[in-house]
């Protein structure tokens, strides 16, 4: 016992030590050492964010230098505060409070004293900076916009928040990332990869040379420049036309699905969210709950499509054999649902498919809609077929375009109506509003444009997309290059397209034709309601227009949705016509028409629901 006591203790201690050491070095060991090590500081070298160009190679977004005045409190020597403040353009109180804030943060580490000086201020300050010890100027890169348009589609960048940091370890606090729009969608491409230098520190946080002689350091990888499908000229022109109007315009190239313009009104100058005034401007935009400039109506506003939807109903009716182009319905300045009469603006008379479309006859389409359903033993079965056809146009679902937000819209189905009316306690008459694009069906402007592109292509479409090239190299993404076929046979499109062409010749948009360009289009005048103090109140109709041109071999398909613009041929029709001319001809021949559109605004209309007074809607004069 006495002989083995000491040996046992020695062994026991040895085992305890090995146990503790394996706990420390094997089980507690974290492989992320290099980032957690207080002796190593990672200094990042930020790459320049990629530029964004339009489809014709015109610059949209680039970078600009900004200059932060930095301070290291410990190194500050007594100075002429007044002169310094004048140079910086701040008052003395602010200077003192910023300096003490910096000192509280750390006397040894640099803090930002004045962020983002303009180039001019930097020029003045630069020469005199040497006289102020402890202060220096640090260059940063900010976004520069070579256009005042496209704020919502381009998106903005902002500092990463806690949530981003947790989810994505490649971000560090204070870094910038794309938050909306293209900047967000193509963040990884635009951002590049930051370079890192590891520096060995001692316990007083002083540099004592590179870590591992810099063998682990990496060079920054520049962000890639991208070319987007937008047409800068068209985008800017569309936004100009939208002045004073709320709504969205989406223009597509039918042959490729490329988005030519994605316009939301009202919008804002993207430069507002860059620089010193950023947060002030951001709150102003964010809290403008009436015109909502940061709300991208072109992809988010899900509303009744109105009459343009009649073209799809015509196609479904043709496909299902419910009608032929020669089938006629009579319009009694409206039609009857049971004993209730629903109105029509077409003037009355016997309508076939062609005149039904170009005069936008409600009675015709109500008849055709009923006939689709009457072919099936139950409304539910008719509904299934109808729903399938509608969805093949990309309605009622997210289209799959490469932007970070969107809405699916709504194509109602039998479950939807069973829920509202009870199982099978509804018929085609109950849901007749859908025949003219009112009722339960809802679409976003981009869906409307896509649907138009599908008609323009006579039966197929390409998923709308915004990315064209990366570093000058055309993208090849099958999702965007593969045609999506609708469930309607090609032969049924021609009569519908003919009807749409007649719209411009003798129909609802006869006064909007463009010399030398054959256009096919369809107007829409959409009833809409809002709640004012809880009371459902009707507002002036929304003005809707879809069109594509030329009729043969279409180059552009466009949807224009103007809130409370009344007749489709008014605001939406005018804007669509001007946009098509601008895109196809590059100039506007109808100067008066253009002037009228640029000058007319709907501000009065938008103020009505907020006036607190009873108001008139759908006023004749304009």
């Amino acid at each position, binding site marked *: *016992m*006495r*002989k083995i*006591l*000491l*040996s046992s*203790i*020695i*062994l026991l*201690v*040895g085992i*305890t*030590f*090995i146990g*503790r*050491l*394996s706990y*420390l*070095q*094997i089980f*507690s*060991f974290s492989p992320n*050492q290099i980032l957690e*090590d*207080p*002796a*190593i500081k990672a200094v990042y070298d930020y790459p320049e964010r990629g530029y964004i160009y339009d489809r014709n190679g015109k610059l949209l977004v680039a970078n600009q230098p900004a200059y932060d005045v930095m301070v290291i409190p410990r190194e500050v020597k007594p100075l002429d505060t007044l002169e310094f403040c004048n140079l910086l353009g701040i008052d003395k109180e602010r200077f003192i409070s910023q300096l003490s804030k910096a000192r509280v943060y750390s006397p040894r580490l640099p803090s930002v004293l004045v962020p983002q000086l303009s180039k001019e201020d930097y020029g003045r300050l630069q020469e005199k900076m040497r006289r102020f010890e402890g202060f220096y100027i640090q260059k940063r890169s900010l976004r520069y916009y070579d256009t005042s348009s496209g704020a919502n589609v381009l998106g903005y960048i902002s500092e990463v928040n806690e949530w981003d940091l947790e989810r994505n370890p490649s971000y560090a606090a204070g870094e910038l990332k794309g938050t909306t729009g293209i900047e967000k969608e193509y963040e990884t491409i635009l951002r590049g990869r930051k370079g890192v230098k590891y520096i*060995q*520190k*001692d*316990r007083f946080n002083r540099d*004592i*040379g590179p*870590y*591992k002689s810099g063998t682990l350091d990496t060079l920054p990888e520049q962000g890639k420049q991208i070319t987007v499908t937008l047409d800068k000229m068209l985008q800017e022109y569309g936004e100009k036309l939208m002045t004073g109007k709320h709504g969205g315009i989406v223009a597509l190239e039918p042959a490729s699905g490329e988005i030519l313009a994605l316009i939301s009104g009202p919008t804002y100058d993207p430069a507002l969210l860059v620089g010193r005034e950023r947060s002030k401007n951001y709150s102003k935009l964010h809290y403008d709950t009436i015109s909502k400039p940061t709300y991208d109506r072109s992809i988010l506003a899900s509303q009744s499509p109105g009459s343009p939807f009649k073209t799809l109903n015509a196609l479904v009716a043709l496909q299902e054999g419910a009608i032929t182009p020669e089938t006629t319905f009579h319009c009694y300045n409206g039609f009857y649902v049971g004993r209730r009469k629903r109105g029509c603006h077409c003037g009355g008379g016997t309508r076939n498919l062609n005149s039904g479309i170009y005069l936008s006859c409600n009675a015709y389409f109500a008849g055709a809609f009923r006939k689709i359903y009457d072919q099936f033993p139950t409304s539910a079965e008719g509904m299934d077929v109808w729903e399938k056809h509608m969805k093949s146009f990309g309605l009622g679902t997210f289209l799959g375009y490469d932007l970070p937000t969107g809405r699916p819209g709504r194509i109602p189905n039998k479950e939807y109506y069973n829920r509202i009316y009870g199982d099978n306690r509804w018929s085609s008459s109950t849901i007749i509003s859908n025949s003219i694009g009112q009722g339960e069906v809802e679409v976003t402007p981009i869906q409307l444009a896509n649907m138009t592109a599908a008609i323009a292509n006579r039966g197929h479409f390409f998923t709308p997309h915004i990315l064209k090239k990366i570093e000058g190299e055309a993208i090849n993404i099958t999702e965007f290059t593969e045609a999506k076929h609708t469930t309607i046979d090609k032969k049924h499109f021609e009569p519908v397209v003919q009807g749409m062409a007649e719209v411009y010749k003798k129909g609802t948009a006869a006064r909007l034709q463009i010399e030398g360009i054959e256009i096919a289009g369809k107007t829409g005048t959409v009833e809409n309601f809002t709640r004012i103090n809880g009371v459902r109140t009707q507002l002036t109709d929304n003005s809707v227009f879809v069109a594509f041109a030329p009729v043969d071999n279409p180059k552009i398909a466009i949807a224009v949705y103007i809130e409370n613009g009344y007749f489709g041929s008014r605001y939406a029709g005018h804007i669509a016509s001007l946009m098509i001319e601008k895109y196809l001809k590059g100039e506007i021949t109808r100067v008066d028409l253009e002037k009228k559109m640029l000058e007319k605004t709907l501000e009065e209309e938008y103020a009505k629901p907020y006036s607190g007074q009873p108001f008139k809607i759908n006023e004749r004069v304009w």
Partner: protein
Amino acid sequence: MSVSGKSVLKRLDWFSVLLYISLVFIGWINIYSSTFTDNNPSIFNFATLHGKQLFFIGASGMSIIIILALEANFYERFSSLFYIVSLALLIGLFVFGKTIAGATSWYDLGFFNLQPSELAKVATALALAKYLSDIQTDIKRQKDQMIAIMIILLPAFLIIPQPDPGSALVFFALIFVIFREGLPLYYLGIGFMVILIFILTLMFGTIWVGIILGLLLALFLLLKKPSFKVPIIPVILIYVAIVLFSLSVNFVFNNVFEQRHRDRFSLWLRLEKDPKKLEDIRRDIGYNTYQSEKAIESGGKYGKGFLEGTRTKGNFVPEQHTDYIFSTVGEEWGFVGTATVVLLFTTLLLRLVYLSERQKNDFSRMYGYGVISILFVHYFINIGMVIGVLPTIGIPLPFFSYGGSGLLFFTALLFIFLKLDANRLNELT
């Protein structure tokens, strides 16, 4: 002389020598690393700390030659003298001592600072062996037990006021020698009880210690065999003594200890229940331990490599080349390195136990146990502190830590025993 010189090299336990050389070598490598700076890369620069240590390694080599060359019975014969001289030197410190880092523990010899407490360790081990091996000493006698304990405690009491409680603690380890020779084990039991009650009182308070102990006692009385007679009065007296001791622990802890001592225990036993305050203590008083634990942890399985320890380079662990040298091993050589060092120490100590037990001569065996006790307590407390299982007690790691007088005396301590071991066969003739 020539014959004995030959025989000593032949009979020397080369396995122990090899372990010694390995430890010194690994130790120096790590001192080099922890004092290394890019602007001073020369190995043989005696102005640097690693250069100085290299000089002392050479000096230790010289001392080994001298120790092996001397007659084996020289150490036994002069052990009393060594002891008296070292006591005199310790007393002399009160008058002539040089103060370094708050402790008056050194004589300034110009080229070299002599630390007499190091000398006293060797001398006390020799003196204790000499006394216990004396034909007239009977360790079963209480008087002789007391004298043996006094031999150990005398230098310790002279060292405590320097103040150097760490070194003083080392002498208590020599109690193992007396145990080996027959000191009743209840001494160890009492010592163990004292430490246990000390810790339990700090953790749970006197009242709980009293209640639990009372309950255990009652349980024992209920379950015992009826035939077993319990001497009631002594048991009650012991119980009262324990409770009184427990009360005195509170008193000593709160009134005699300084705040820094209290904080060390608060940290070690996690007495502070407020995690925020505990973190403050950890940052403050536990800074060294925290940094050394982190440095060791960051080494992982295989370490960061020689001269690649980032925390070592950044001087994050204070006193890294002396008391905290083991953290350099941990960071640069990883678990492989630390486990190797622990294994080397364990092997050396067990080897020395084996050597001691094979001695025919009582003095040699007892001195051997003295050597083991002293080396073991240094190794145990130092590494225990560096890896955070023991509270902070500043004593060096034998053969490893930077320090000339430390290395010299540890070398002398070991090689005197190896000389005695090499000579063991001569004793028979």
